[in-house]
Structures are given as C-alpha cells and as structure tokens.
C-alpha cells in the first residue's frame, strides 16, 4: 500500500507538473492574451500500421526476430556468395513465413483500423453557440460540450454538466472498462446553470492518468456579476469514454480528456509478452545446433584446405577453376568457403520449425475454446484463450496462486445469521431453496425474544441504510416493472411497492445484507433524490436523507453513511471488518460480539460488524465541513479524505455483527486435491480474514488434519513483550528449523507421488507480517525473505491473508524469481487479482461475479474453478507433451537430414556438393515431413484425458520441463546422429559397386542422394508413427499421405524435363532407383535398422511402464479411500466448529490411518 502510494507520488510528480486548464463554452473575457492550449484530438489509434508504412515497418518488425534475421542472412549469403544451393532453397520458405505472418498481422491491423474507424467516425452531437451540431467523434476537441443520449457510449472523458434526470444524476455502466456491470451514479457539477449556452467556466484538472477511479479537478464558473464560483470535481463527475449511459435520457458534458489521453486509452496497453519455458528450451537447443553448424562448417573448411594442399587435388586437369576463382584472395576464399558450408548445413536449423510451433500453438488453443467441459450453462460461456503462447506452460505449473473470494468460493453470498447485542439470530435455512422464514416460528417473533426491540430495529435499519446498493429499475426510467428478479419470496402478506426488485451492488455482501434485513422485515425501497426509503416491519415507509457516503476501500475495510432521519437526527452507520470496527467502538460492547464474530469466522463465514453513532448538530456540521473541504482538495485528496473519515468514524456504538456465507465453488476441494496430487503447491492469497481463509482452506482440503500450521501473523507476532521485529526473527528461524532443516531430504521430482513426506506443513502469513518480512531493515530483509521463501517452499500449502493486490503480485514475483524459477500460475476473478495474474507465468481469470477485469488481463479465462483441473492436468499435460515432442523431433529430423550431407563432404573433396537435390532440400521440411508432426502435435493423446484427470500424479512425470531437459535432448540428438550415420554409410557401402541395376547400368551421385533421402523421409515419418499413441484418421491420412506425396512428387519431379531448371539432375533417377532391387533392399534394411533401437527402447521400457501405471492405478483407489476417510471428520468440523481443537483430533485420527496406508503401499 505504502509502495503504491509512493509510486504514484514519484511517478505522478512529473505528470502533475501542471494541471490542464480547459475553457468551457465562451472563453472568459477577463483573461487577456488567451492562448488556446493544445490537446490531442479525439482520435483513437490502436492500429500499428498505415497503408504506406505497412511494408517497411512490418518487415522491420519481423526481421527483429532473431530467427528470421538468421534466415535472412543465410539467404543473402546465398545470393552474394557462390553457394552450393540456390537462394531459392532458403528464400522460398523464408518468403512464405514472412508473407504468412505479414498477412496475419495485416489482417489484425485491418480489424483494428476498422474498430478505430467505428469509434472515430461515430456520430456525436456537439453544442456550439447554443446550436446542436452533428459531427464525428474524432472531431471533438477538449472543451467541447457534448450531448449523449441513453445507451450511447461516451466519446471521450466528460465532466457531467447537465442531466435530464431530476436529481442531477445519471447512471452509467462501465462494463467495458472494468467489467462492473452495475449502474453507477454520477453527479452533475453542483449548481451549474441549466442554460449551457451562457455557461462560462474553466476547468482545472490533473493531467491524464490511467487510474479509472481517480480524478481531481476544480471548476471555476464565471458569472458576469459575481465572483467566480469554485466547484470541486471528483470521479463522480467524470464520465469515462467507453462507459455507457443508462437510465438517463440525455446528458451534456464537457470534454476534458480526448483521444489517446482518455482513461480508457491510457489503460489500454498491449499485454506484456509472456514467453513460455519451452521457448527458452528451444533457444538453448538452437544455440547447441548453431554450435554444431558452425563447427561442422569449420571442420569442413579446415579439412578442405588440408586436402587441397596435397598436390593434384585442388585443381586436377579435368576440373580447372574459373579465372575469377583463381584470382580470389586465399583468405577471402576461405571465408566464402566457410559461408558456403554454413549455407549447405543451414537446414539443420529449420525455418519451418518456427512456423510449425506457431501453428501448433495457434490451432491448439482452439481445442481449449472448443472444450465443452469448460462450458458453463450458467453464464453461457466456455473457456477463453487470450494468448496461445502458453498452452504448454499449463503442463508445467509448480505453484498455483489462487484468490479465495470468487475463486475458491462462489462469491454468492447468503445471509446466515446476525448477532445483535450479543444475541444470536439464526436465520433458518435448512433447505436452502425453501424459505424457512415464514414457515417456522417467524424470526420476527423470535427477534423480540432476545435483544430489545429498539436495538433490533436500529440494527436492521443500519443494514438497510449502510450500503451503496441500488434498486434495479428493470426497463430503465419507467416505474412500471414486471421483472421478477429478487428473492423476496418470503415477504408474504406485506407486499411492498417494490416487491419484484433486484438489487445491484458492486459487492455481493451488501446485497446479501440488504436481503437479510428484508427477511427480518426491513426492506430497502431505493433512493430518490438523495432520500433513502425503507419500509419497516409495520409496512410504514421511512425516509432518510442521505448526507454522506464514506466509501468502502480495502485499506479502511469499512464504509459508513451519514443520514438524517425524519426526526432530524444525523446518524452515522458504519459497517466493516471486525478489526477495523472494534478499535472505533466503546470497548465494553466488544467482547460479547467478538465471541460471535470469531465463531462465525472459523465456520468460514464472512463477518461484518455494524456500529452507529448519533451525531450532534455541531458534530455533524464540523464533519460536513471537513468532508466538503477534503473533497475540494486538489492535492492529496485521498489522504485528506481518509483522515476525515477516520475522525468521523470514531467513538461509535457497536450494535451487532452479521455472518454471510460464501459457499465453496463446485468441486473446489476435488480440484485442489487433484492439484496437490499433481505436485503443484497451492498458495491462497486473499484479502480476507485469517480465520475465514483458514476455514476455507480446510474446506478445500488444502489444509488437512495432519497438516501442521505455522502461523506468522500479527497475532503470533504480538505474543510476547518483545519487539515485533525480534519476534519475527525468532519465529522465522523456528519455522525454518521445523519445516526445512528437520525434514529428511526427499527425492525431488519422483513420480511416486503418494509417498509424501511424513509431515505436511501449512504456512499462514498475513499482509502486515509479510510487509515486515519484505520491508524490514535493509540487511535482514533479504535474509528474512530467504527464510520465508524456504519455509514456504517446504510447505504443501501457504495461506496469505489480508493481502493487498500489490502484495499478491509481490509474492508471485518472489516465488517466480526463486531458485529454479518455478512456473507459477495465478487464478483469480476480481480486479484485485489482476496484478498477480499479470505477474505470474500463466494468468487465469475466472468469469466470475466481480466483473471482467481479471478475464481481460488473463491468458486464459475459465468459467469455474473446477475447470482448472482439466486445463492443467488434461490440456496442459497434453500440450506440453505435444510441443516437447514437436521440438525434439524437429531438431532430430533435421540433424539426420543434414548429417549425411556433412559426411558426403568427406567423399567429394570438401567441395560443398549437396547430397540431395535442391527440390528435396527445400521440400523436406515444408512438405514431406511437416504435416505428420503438426497433426501429431495437435492430436496426440499419449494417455487419454480421462486417465490424466484420474491420476493426478501423472502430471509429475512431466514436471520441471522433463521432456526438454538435456538428457532427452541428448537422446534425440544421438538418435539423429545414429540415423544420419546409418543412412549415409549404409548407402555408401551399397555404392561400393554402383552397378545396382539388373542390366548392369550404374547409378550416379544423384541416385545416391535420392536413396539416402528416401530412407530418411520414410524413417523419420515411421519414427513419428512409432511415437504416435493416438491414431485418428487424421494421423493416418497425414502420415501415409505424406509418404505417398513424397513418392508421387519424386516421380513427377523426375518425370519431366523442367524447362526452367538449368540441370535436370533428377531426371528419372527416382524411377531407376525403384527399378533396382538392391535399392529396395537397402531402403528396407536401413529403415528397419534405424527404428530398431527405438522399438527396443519402447519394449524394454514397457515392462517398467505398465508396472508404474499399474501402481498408479493401484494407488488411485487407495487415495480415494483416504479421501473418504478425510471427508467424514471434515464435515463434522464444519458443523461442530470447535476452532483449533479439531486439528489435533484429526491429527490423531490421521496417525491411526497410517498403518492402512503402508499396508496399501506394500500390497501389490
């Protein structure tokens, strides 16, 4: 929090050097030498290119990619230097890649242009000299008065001057900005004249800044005869571009920020490019292959000159050099020779791999969008993929950071009970759908049994008044509504005028509370021109003037309203978290309520305390003045406001507390268990209270009965008399000893998932302690951080409660940057999770109730938490395996493609003579071998999804980039080398006697190359076929189709004298090859021999394979049984709720089960 403020202060310093001054309407006559300030126009430009700069700019962008640049260099070398292969061989694929990318980007940009145009050409009405002028949105200038009708979006950021509504308000939704779809009320600038023509004013406001909820400004209204009036402007006066006008016929506003300076445009930024770990592996492998390439070229160049130094070799009589060659400088020749070799071997790093990887990612992401398992009937949506670059990263996740509210829990609040003056009022809700309110003994009567009637009613009035809930007006401005929206079914016999109302609020707690109050007889009817209407138990309507709303914010964790009752008393009602209310009320009341609050919290309910205060007229007058003053402040308005709030909200009387249940998401526990089974560590980062969060963790089985909890919270820190710092130090050391040092080192990364360390640890830290860890004195900070990290890494679950959004990101960053740089995933649904979603390697948004901001900033969005399981264990696993195989295979197939060509140099006098024909060189990666691997990388399911989902431990088998580490890379490389050697020397020995045809005719060098190439194409395709575990018809089609295509192409290519070719090298070479029995025999032999080690490996691994799988199969029912055993006591704990005691109990039970576990293990 401090950090953010500091940031703003530092960062904002520059931009706040001067505020901008805007002249509304007529410029004041008093100002002399008026220079119209320059502001940008109202054009939104999100496109990157124009028609003119597209080609150069796009090419420049594309060649900034290192791979493209490399291929460009190779191409240029081929053009300039006399190289063995024609520039076409590398130019064509490069051209293809560049063109495809350019078309794609061009299309995307065209879409952006279209969207821009739609926005920029949008017709708007501008008031000019009293006349209404239609114009285009992009022509709006700062200072123009713009008229907007209902359901239109605002064309720029406007200060609301005039509204058709009587109460000088207007409603907007900012769904497209922050996703909050509730109607927000905005106010006109107070006391502006109704006649905008005669308005003469200046607005002084801050320079544009991206925070949607911050705006400070001042409006000077000049009147001819009076001193200029000054009005403060705040975010409630500012209508943001992109928001939509609702429930209001027409408004007029003056443009303050336009075009790229609007808050929407400032908020729009290209998401930072996240790169997956696989890509890093690719780059590492690329480097290795580049080294191989360079060393090959070096070896060949050196040997060439050694060989040439022997007499008669360099220039025999039959093979004279050209004049130019003779004249070339020796060193230059060496260099060009080196380059030639580079070009000859450059196919070892294929252009097509990048294309294939991109295609695989792009196409592969569709399977996530298409997955019906991700479809949620409630919101009628499936999963959303915002980036396709991270598919495989989903299979590599080691840490999951999850939000609690709305992610683990449903954020579907239900009023459970309240406590008034220490008496508990439980709302009977045995069967949730049935309203037990009126059925059983009515709580109305029950209420009266306990606390005094007056207190009760005060409490219920507080609930009814202290909120920012709006009553939904279904059809807009009409008072007639037929929508049956709300759950007021229990209100029999007292039909209020707003019977079928729905409530809209930014926080669901508020709705739950208002509805809760409704159940007890107090109904909030809505607001009319700053008057709140409620209907009390005797169906009488009470009205209260709403004087001030002291808004909720996560720092204060409370909100208040000041109302004036009919009787003229100014009342302050405040509700908020216990920790923020208790210090502000008279202490003697606290204890009896605290009991209830704590009990409720341990049951997993969200608790709020309600307090009130009667303000004497003097008090109110002072508070009112202070509030007004603070709201007018241009500088540090926030701080000043908070100071006033704190001052007003003091010395209150505690009335009671509420408990609202936030139900767990569907299958939350199962999902979490699966994640833990997959070896993923789950950290819960929440802004909620520790007790609530802890109970949620228990309910989700993140903490189990055997888990030993290590707490590092304000409570534990304040245990002793010592300073907090010291206590922190001691605790950290103690926990470190417990969790890190005393634990016997376990073998990391083992697939034997069920043999967990004997003791599970859970770690709990709260925001305050965390900031102490992070921000303690310089020297110890990194030490503490280290200790903290080590403890956390040894715990199965870490719970961080009372987190500010920035702290969430901080934690993610800390883990992300820790040793081994584990892959992190953040999942959340609210705006407060955005920072951690952006920070983590993979950010997942839940299409929850808290708006769409998380979804928009996420890489993947899913409707429900339960979908995470399939996303990671199913899709993630498969994509990782697919892409890892794709990458390895690509390097392999190019190694065994180029190695024979390298070896051939030893037999052709190091003359850079290519072994294969140019057509084969070009087509190998594009046509002959590209499709099978693409199909494989899209369709392969080496283990089918159901099994993956059932056996979470399988996820561990690919943890830590297992398939792209150096050992598998070495295996593939050796395989490639083996195949290359085999191909070349197999054919070499065959060509010991080149008379291979039955008619005694001989084969030449192109036949040699064609035989090698045929073996190569068939072998690499069969190798892939051997690895394919999931043969759909597409795989069949593509694999056999590729081979057929190769054969047909070869016939075709060799069957015609191509007029555009200088040399008809392959004329009938392929056909002659096929007419030779020896060629057939050698092809079959070499293919078989190449695949032999692979088959052998598969078979030899198999005796282990099924065994492991069998064991995992065996372990599955075992874990299931354990789950059942767990389940029962957990349920008990939910009901009995005896706080920390049950943990011990459970531990004992757990230990009793231990023999079971061991017996299961040794069983099969």
């Amino acid at each position: 929090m401090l950090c953010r403020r500091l940031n703003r202060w530092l960062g904002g310093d520059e931009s706040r050097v001067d505020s901008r001054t805007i002249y509304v309407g007529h410029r004041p006559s008093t100002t002399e030498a008026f220079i119209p300030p320059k502001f940008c126009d109202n054009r939104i430009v999100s496109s990157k290119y124009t028609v003119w700069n597209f080609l150069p700019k796009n090419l420049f962008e594309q060649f900034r990619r290192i791979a493209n640049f490399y291929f460009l260099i190779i191409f240029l070398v081929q053009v300039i230097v006399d190289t063995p292969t024609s520039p076409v061989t590398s130019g064509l694929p490069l051209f293809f890649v560049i063109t495809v990318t350019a078309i794609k980007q061009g299309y995307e940009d065209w879409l952006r242009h279209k969207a821009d145009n739609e926005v920029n050409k949008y017709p708007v009405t501008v008031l000019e000299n009293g006349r209404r002028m239609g114009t285009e949105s992009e022509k709006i200038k700062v200072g123009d008065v713009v008229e907007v009708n209902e359901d239109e979006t605002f064309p720029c950021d406007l200060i609301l001057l005039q509204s058709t509504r009587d109460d000088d308000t207007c409603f907007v939704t900012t769904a497209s900005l922050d996703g909050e779809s509730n109607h927000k009320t905005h106010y006109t600038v107070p006391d502006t004249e109704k006649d905008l023509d005669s308005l003469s004013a200046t607005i002084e406001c801050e320079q544009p800044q991206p925070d949607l909820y911050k705006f400070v400004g001042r409006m000077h209204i000049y009147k001819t005869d009076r001193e200029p009036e000054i009005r403060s402007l705040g975010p409630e006066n500012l209508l943001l571009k992109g928001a939509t006008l609702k429930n209001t016929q027409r408004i007029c506003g003056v443009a303050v920020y336009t075009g790229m300076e609007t808050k929407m445009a400032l908020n729009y930024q290209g998401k930072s490019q996240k790169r997956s770990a696989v890509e890093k592996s690719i780059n590492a492998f690329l480097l290795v292959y580049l080294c191989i390439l360079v060393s090959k070229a070096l070896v060949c160049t050196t040997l060439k000159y050694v060989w040439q130094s022997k007499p008669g070799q360099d220039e025999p009589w039959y093979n004279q050099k050209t004049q130019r060659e003779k004249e070339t400088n020796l060193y230059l020749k060496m260099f060009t020779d080196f380059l030639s070799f580079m070009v000859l071997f450059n196919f070892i790093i294929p252009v097509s791999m990048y294309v294939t990887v991109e295609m695989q990612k792009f196409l592969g992401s569709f399977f996530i969008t298409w997955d019906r398992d991700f479809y949620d009937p409630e919101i009628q949506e499936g999963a959303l993929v915002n980036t396709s670059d991270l598919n495989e990263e989903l299979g590599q996740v080691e840490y999951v950071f999850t939000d609690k509210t709305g992610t683990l829990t449903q954020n579907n609040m239900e009023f459970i009970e309240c406590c008034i003056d220490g008496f508990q009022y439980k709302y009977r809700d045995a069967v949730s759908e049935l309203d037990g309110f009126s059925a059983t003994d009515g709580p109305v009567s029950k209420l009266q049994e306990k606390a005094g009637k007056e207190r009760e009613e005060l409490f219920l009035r507080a609930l009814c008044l202290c909120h920012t809930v709006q009553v939904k007006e279904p059809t807009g401005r009409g008072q007639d509504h037929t929508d049956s929206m709300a759950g007021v079914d229990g209100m029999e016999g007292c039909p209020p005028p707003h019977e079928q109302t729905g409530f809209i609020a930014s926080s669901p707690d508020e709705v739950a509370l208002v509805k809760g109050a409704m159940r007890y007889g107090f109904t909030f009817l809505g607001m009319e021109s700053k008057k709140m209407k409620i209907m009390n138990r005797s169906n009488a309507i009470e009205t209260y003037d709403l004087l001030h709303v002291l808004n909720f914010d996560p720092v204060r964790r409370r909100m208040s309203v000041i109302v004036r009752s009919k009787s003229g008393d100014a009342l302050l009602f405040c509700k908020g978290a216990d920790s923020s209310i208790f210090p502000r009320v008279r202490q003697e009341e606290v204890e009896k309520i605290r009991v209830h609050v704590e009990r409720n919290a341990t049951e997993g309910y969200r608790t709020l305390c309600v307090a009130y205060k009667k303000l004497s007229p003097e008090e109110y007058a002072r508070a009112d003045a202070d509030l007004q003053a603070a709201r007018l402040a241009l500088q540090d308005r926030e701080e000043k406001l908070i100071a006033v709030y704190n001052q007003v909200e003091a010395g209150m009387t505690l009335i009671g507390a509420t408990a609202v249940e936030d139900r767990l998401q569907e299958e939350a526990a199962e999902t979490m268990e699966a994640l833990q089974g997959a070896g993923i560590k789950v950290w819960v980062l929440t802004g909620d209270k520790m007790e609530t969060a802890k109970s949620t963790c228990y309910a989700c089985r993140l903490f189990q009965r055997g888990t030993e909890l290590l707490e590092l919270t304000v409570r534990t820190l304040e245990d002793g008399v010592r300073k907090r710092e010291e206590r922190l130090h001691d605790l950290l050391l103690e926990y470190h000893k417990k969790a890190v040092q005393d634990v016997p080192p376990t073998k990391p990364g083992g697939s034997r998932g069920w043999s967990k360390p004997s003791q599970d640890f859970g770690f709990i830290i709260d925001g305050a302690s965390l900031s102490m860890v992070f921000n303690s004195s310089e020297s110890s900070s990194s030490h503490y951080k280290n200790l903290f990290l080590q403890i956390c890494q040894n715990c199965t679950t870490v719970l961080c409660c009372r987190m500010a959004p920035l702290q969430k990101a901080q934690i993610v960053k800390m883990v992300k940057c820790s040793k081994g740089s584990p892959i992190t995933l953040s999942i959340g649904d609210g705006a407060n999770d955005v920072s951690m979603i952006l920070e983590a390697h993979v950010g997942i948004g839940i299409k929850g109730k808290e708006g769409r901001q998380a979804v928009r900033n996420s890489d993947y969005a899913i409707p429900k938490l339960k979908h995470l399981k399939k996303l990671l264990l199913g899709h993630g696993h498969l994509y990782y395996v697919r892409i890892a195989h794709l990458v390895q295979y690509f390097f392999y197939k190019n190694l065994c493609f180029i190695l024979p060509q390298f070896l051939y140099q030893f037999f052709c006098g190091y003359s850079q003579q290519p072994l294969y024909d140019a057509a084969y060189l070009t087509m190998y990666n594009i046509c002959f071998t590209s499709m099978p691997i693409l199909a494989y990388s899209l369709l392969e399911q080496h283990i089918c999804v159901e099994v993956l989902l059932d056996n979470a431990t399988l996820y561990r088998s690919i943890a830590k980039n297992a398939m792209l580490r150096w050992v598998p890379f070495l295996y593939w490389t050796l395989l490639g080398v083996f195949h290359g050697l085999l191909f070349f020397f197999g054919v070499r020995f065959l060509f010991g006697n080149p008379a291979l045809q039955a008619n005694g005719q001989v084969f030449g060098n192109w036949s040699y190359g064609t035989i090698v190439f045929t073996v190569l194409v068939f072998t690499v395709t069969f190798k892939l076929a051997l690895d394919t575990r999931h043969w759909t018809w597409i795989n069949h089609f593509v694999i056999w189709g590729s081979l057929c295509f190769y054969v047909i192409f070869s016939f075709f290519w060799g069957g015609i004298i191509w007029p555009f070719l200088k040399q008809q090298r392959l004329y009938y070479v392929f056909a002659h090859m096929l007419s030779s029995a020896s060629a057939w025999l050698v092809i079959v032999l070499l293919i078989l021999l190449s695949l032999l080690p692979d088959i052998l490996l598969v078979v030899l691994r198999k005796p282990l394979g099924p065994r492991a799988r069998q064991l995992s199969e065996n372990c599955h029912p075992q874990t299931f049984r354990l789950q059942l055993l767990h389940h029962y006591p957990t349920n008990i704990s939910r009901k009995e709720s005896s706080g920390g005691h049950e943990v011990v109990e459970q531990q004992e039970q757990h230990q009793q089960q231990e023999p079971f576990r061991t017996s299961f293990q040794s069983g099969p």
Partner: protein
Amino acid sequence: MMASGYNAKEEDGHHSGAPGNGGAGAVKSKKPDNTAFKQQRLPAWQPILTAGTVLPAFFVIGLIFIPIGIGLFVTSNNIKEFEIDYTGIEASSPCYNCAQNYSWNSTSSCTCKVPFTLEQPFESNVFMYYGLSNFYQNHRRYVKSRDDSQLNGDLTSLKSPSKECDPYRTSDGLPIAPCGAIANSLFNDTLELYHLSNGTRTAVVLMKKGIAWWTDKNVKFRNPGGNANLTVAFQGTSKPVNWRTPVFELDPNDPDNNGFINEDFIVWMRTAALPTFRKLYRIIQKKVDAPTLASGKYELEVSYNYPVRSFDGRKRVILSTISWMGGKNPFLGIAYITVGSVCFFLAVVLLIIHHKYDNRCSSADIPN
C-alpha cells in the same frame, strides 16, 4: 435464489469488440459444438508396443531377413568378377611406358596390351566396366559444370552455353559443345578384349549399346536438329579442349550413337557418387553354345589416352557378370544376415524378459 439478483451480467459478453482485443479465440456465447474433433474425441487406434506384440515381429523379421541375406550373399558370391589395373604405375606394368610418356599434344595414341587369365568361365552376359580411382567426379565445381539444355538439343544453349560451364565454356571465341568440365574430361581410353587360344587372337565382340539409361539416351540427351547431319548442326561450335575429335565424330559409323547421344558420353555425363567409381563400358553378349568368356588367356588392348597420374588416380577394367541385384557386392547379404540375426537374438532376449515380467504382472496392457 440470491444469485437471481446478479443476472445483469449478460451484457458483459458483448464488450469483446474493444480495439486490439484480437486474441486467439473470441468470446463464444454459445455452447461449443459437440463434434468428436473439437472435443478431441476422434475415434483413435491406440497401439501399444509391448514385448508381446514386438516379439513375433522380431522373430518374423529374423526369419525373413536371414534367408534373404543368405540368398543375397550367395547371389553376390556367384557373380564372377575380374579386375585389371592397367594404370601403369609399376615399371613392370605393360602400360608403364604409355603412362610415363603421356602428353596431351600427342596425336597418335599410345597402345599397350595387358594380358590376363580367366580361371573360370563367365557364363551369362558379361559387363565390362572401366573404373577410376581418386577421380572426384562428385566435386561441386565439376558436377555443376554442364549444360543440360545444350545436351537436350536446345539451339540457343548450343551457341551460348550456360555460365556454369566455365572455364570450359568457350574456346577461341566459339562456344564449346558439349560444354563443361564433365564433357571435357570424357574418358577416352579405348579398350579392346582379345581371347588368346591356341595361338590365335580373336577379338571378343563388345556391344556398345544399352550401357546408358534408356531415358537419358532417348529423352534427356538430344542432338540439336535431330540426328541427321550432325556436322551442320554443330557448326559454329568448338570441340572440348581435351577432346581429339569433335562431338559429331564420337561414333561416325552409327548415327544413333553419335553426338550427344553417344552412349559412352552419356554414361560419363552421369557423375559418379564417390571418387572411386566404375562405369559401364561394353557388354559382352551371352553366347548360345559356349560360355560368354571361356576360361583361358585374354589380352586387353588399351589405347592409353587418359592421364590419371597427375592426381594419383588409378584405372581399371572390370569384367563382371550381373545378377538380379546388380554387380558383385557382398554388403547387402552380410547386412541382411547381421540384422536378421540381431533381430532373432533380440527376440530371444525379449522372450526371456517378457517371460520373467509376465509372472510378475500379468495384465501388462491396461486399456486406456
């Protein structure tokens, strides 16, 4: 029932048109199609390679390969091959003098006679090859030094050969036909075979047709302006510098074997894969009554024109019969026998392993 207050969310779905939101997947408001493809549930064959399935395959491979290998080996061994090195490096060699005294300018060819004895008769068709060693026909500069369109009878290429032919492109201002290093270095030793029996020296009839690929002879190589009157067709071109005669006099007696479609020339133009190579020179047709080459003494008469000493080359003549698999090459047979045996051996090893593991876990194949 509390959720009912929150139905106002539908409109969220429409905001995806915000600029720059061009992500991979747009928001789909309707349920994804339930097609097998989209749900990744295409019916699939899921083969699992286990010892059980691979074992028989290995056995079968072993059982097939070993007989094939033996067959190949025997076939290769039955091929009779006789090789004569006539380079003339050693002083005792009959061609020593020719090799020593060689000069490009001499117009008369040096002839030498190499006697040899065939121990065994050659029964079927005998193929006569010449072989060169350490001759880099696969050198890049050499391989590309040709003009296939010229050789295909293209008239413009005839007059202006491709640049690739340098430095054998023009001579004395005239385009060379056929241009290029390959054509220029055409093997020009003449080899004749004589059978010495009972003091008589009878020439063995050598067929010069059918030594080149049919497609080369009939399609790829064409004389400019048809086969008639080659002298006119090649007017305005120069002979390759190292040739004694112009291209239209390669075989003046047979218009079907003259010019570019001379088979010796075509065979030479098919560049060899390795620096040691052989090329088909002549075919000795099978006789009806007697062995093609009866055992006994023979004499090879070489008109020694082709210099190889400068690059340490060797020249050989090879007489060989041919089987269905081509010339003599024991490699395939040995390789097949080896691979077959390895497969067989592996099959046995696997059988043992399989047997051992079979006892431990009987249900090796878990259906997915």
